[in-house]
């Protein structure tokens, strides 16, 4: 595989009238990676995605996909599952997939084979002859996902793909995403569910108020956010925590105690204190910040 990036966005700006949806945004998505595009509602994620799939076009700046300038032909190499998605209600599921696949120039000889394959993979093969309006929301979501991948795109963009799916189906979808990734497909995932991002994404970009606030490798980012949170389990009296000037906040959970340290405190200080107080320690663990916390910290700060 060449070293060209799947997506290169350079200083792209897009406004609608007085409203700037995306402001001087630059980002790169490595080929074959799973990329998380994150941000609060109205941050400019959808506009960014729409520019990648040639639905709207930037006012200024450059968008390159697989090293090429944006062009309508490119749409056939991209699969896009929008957040606001629907289907033709009156059409039969099979016809619908044939139509949407046809729009992506899948040869009709291939279409039926692929529809069958995917319908079986996502366990909806029995529904192909049903009218779409008879399907539940989760079922429709699977159909929409199939329509997204039917033309074997090299780049797949999934906007909130898990909303409306039960845990079983959500896991099925995660499996499929892993499969696609292992075949070299580049995947952009836009979601508010940070747990999914942590499970799936290699790199992320966090957008807030039409600007990039954070980008890079997920693991690196998490490390760079020094943690001041501890999880402890102990046996004995909890007196040592009373009026402790090292501790900022305590949260009691069923299985453990979560402690937030005062800024600049060495956790070893606390450990010494606890041992000296005669309490028996079973667990003493520095907690990595969750992406959720990073998200809230970064976005909250900008408010």
């Amino acid at each position, binding site marked *: 595989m060449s070293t060209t990036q799947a997506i290169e966005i350079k200083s792209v700006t897009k406004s*609608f009238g007085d409203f700037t949806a995306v402001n001087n945004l630059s980002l790169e998505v490595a080929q074959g990676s799973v990329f998380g595009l994150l941000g609060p509602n109205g941050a400019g994620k959808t506009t960014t995605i729409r520019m990648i799939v040639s639905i709207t076009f930037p*006012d200024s700046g450059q968008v390159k996909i697989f090293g090429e300038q944006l062009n309508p032909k490119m749409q056939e190499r991209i699969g896009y599952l929008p957040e606001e998605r629907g289907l033709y209600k*009156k059409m039969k599921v099979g016809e619908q997939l044939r139509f949407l696949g046809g729009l992506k120039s899948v040869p009709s000889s291939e279409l039926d084979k692929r529809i069958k394959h995917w319908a079986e993979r996502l366990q909806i093969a029995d529904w192909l002859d049903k009218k779409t309006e008879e399907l539940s929301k989760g079922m429709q979501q699977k159909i929409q996902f199939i*329509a997204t991948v039917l033309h074997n795109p090299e780049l797949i963009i999934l906007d909130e793909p898990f909303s409306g799916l039960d845990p079983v189906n959500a896991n099925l979808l995660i499996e499929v995403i892993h499969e696609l990734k292992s075949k070299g497909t580049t995947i952009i995932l836009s979601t508010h569910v940070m747990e999914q991002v942590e499970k799936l994404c290699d790199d992320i970009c966090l957008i807030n108020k039409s600007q990039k606030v954070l980008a890079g490798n997920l693991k690196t980012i998490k490390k760079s956010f020094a943690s001041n949170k501890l999880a402890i389990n102990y046996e004995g009296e909890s007196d040592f925590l009373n009026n402790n000037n090292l501790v900022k906040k305590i949260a009691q959970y069923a299985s453990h105690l979560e402690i937030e340290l005062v800024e600049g405190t060495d956790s070893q200080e606390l450990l010494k204190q606890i041992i000296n107080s005669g309490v028996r320690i079973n667990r003493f663990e520095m907690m990595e910040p969750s992406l959720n916390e990073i998200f809230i910290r970064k976005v909250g700060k900008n408010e």
Partner: protein
Amino acid sequence: MNKMFLVIKREYLERVLSKWFLIGTLLGPVLMAVLILAPLLVTKLDTSDRKVTVLSLNNDTALLDSIEKRLGNKKDPLGKGKYVVKTLAIEDPSSLPKVQEDLAKQIKSGDINGYLVIKEEGKEHSAEFFAENVSDLGTIRRLEDATSDAIVEKRLSLEGMDIKKINELSKPIDIKTKKLVDAGTKEDNGQSMFLGLIMMFILYMTMLIYGMTVLRGVVEEKQSRIIEVVISSISPLQLMFGKILGIGLVGLTQFTVWSIFGAILPTILASFSLASGMMSIPDIPKSLLVYFVLYFVLGYFLFATLFALAGSIVSNEQDAQQVQMPITMLLIIATIFTTLIIRDPNGTTSIALSLVPFFGPILMFLRIAVQTPPFWQIALSLSLMVVTIIACSWLAAKIYRVGILMYGKRPNIPELIKWLKYT
């Protein structure tokens, strides 16, 4: 192009295969035919005689005979029955109540349908008809005609005039109308106007119905949120024009079915032995058919682009109802001028109005049907329409591609103008 074909195919098949298309296309003409034929068939079934007793309070047997001669045994023109007339000359008017009682009994038992009492006072005559059913206007009209004719004849003869001579001299005449056409003249009793109006009405209805179908289609795609998926595969323009063309083809399909039906209708009528003079279907001139299709195609395209534009700027059915109004008004306004066109098809106002692109499919078509205008006017009307279509398509395309992704509040005009500048 290939992708646009897929859109056309989808739009076309979805509608042609729907049960509404089947009902509208197949049952529509059948219903129309039934509406025309049913009353005829029903009157054919009515074989009962009209039994009437005519009374003269002045013992005027001559008048009674005269009435019976005019009416008795005559066939009813609508039904299959005939008039059975009995006469009763009354010498003593004071016996009338008793006679009436008796006649009322006969009506009750069904021996007669009713009775007519004629009274003469001085030179004035009056008549009263008694029956259980006084809504059978046809029968009453026949009675009235026969009675007045008889009375007028009696009065004239009293003045010493020769009845035969009077009948000869007072014979009315019919004006036969002949339409001047290129090939000479042909008889035309208002058929060309009637035909023109019917075809114009079909144009009006179909442009409206199929235009609204485009609007509904656009709103549906927005509402169901399929739109974003589709335009990530195909340009909004291809989608919009694919939709317009697909739905337009549905309209043409409907016309084809209808013309086949129209072509075999006379045969059907003949098999019911109903193809009498009043039912003859006028021959539609070939050129008129060509103009019909031409004006449908252009008119539909013109209005469909506007309806697509309207559909793209709203997010729900209620708003759609509102934005379609101005477009529908254009069509309605055109129909207001039809009487003017029929009265004076070549007047300056008619010419000017029929050249307005939005009125062309209604008014210029009607002019062609009533009194074919000079060819340059038709050509000018068609060219103006093509230019307007191009302008409207450009406008609709600009708005559509922005509008389909906008949800929520309906934009106002200044906002729409801003949309035109979006890339």
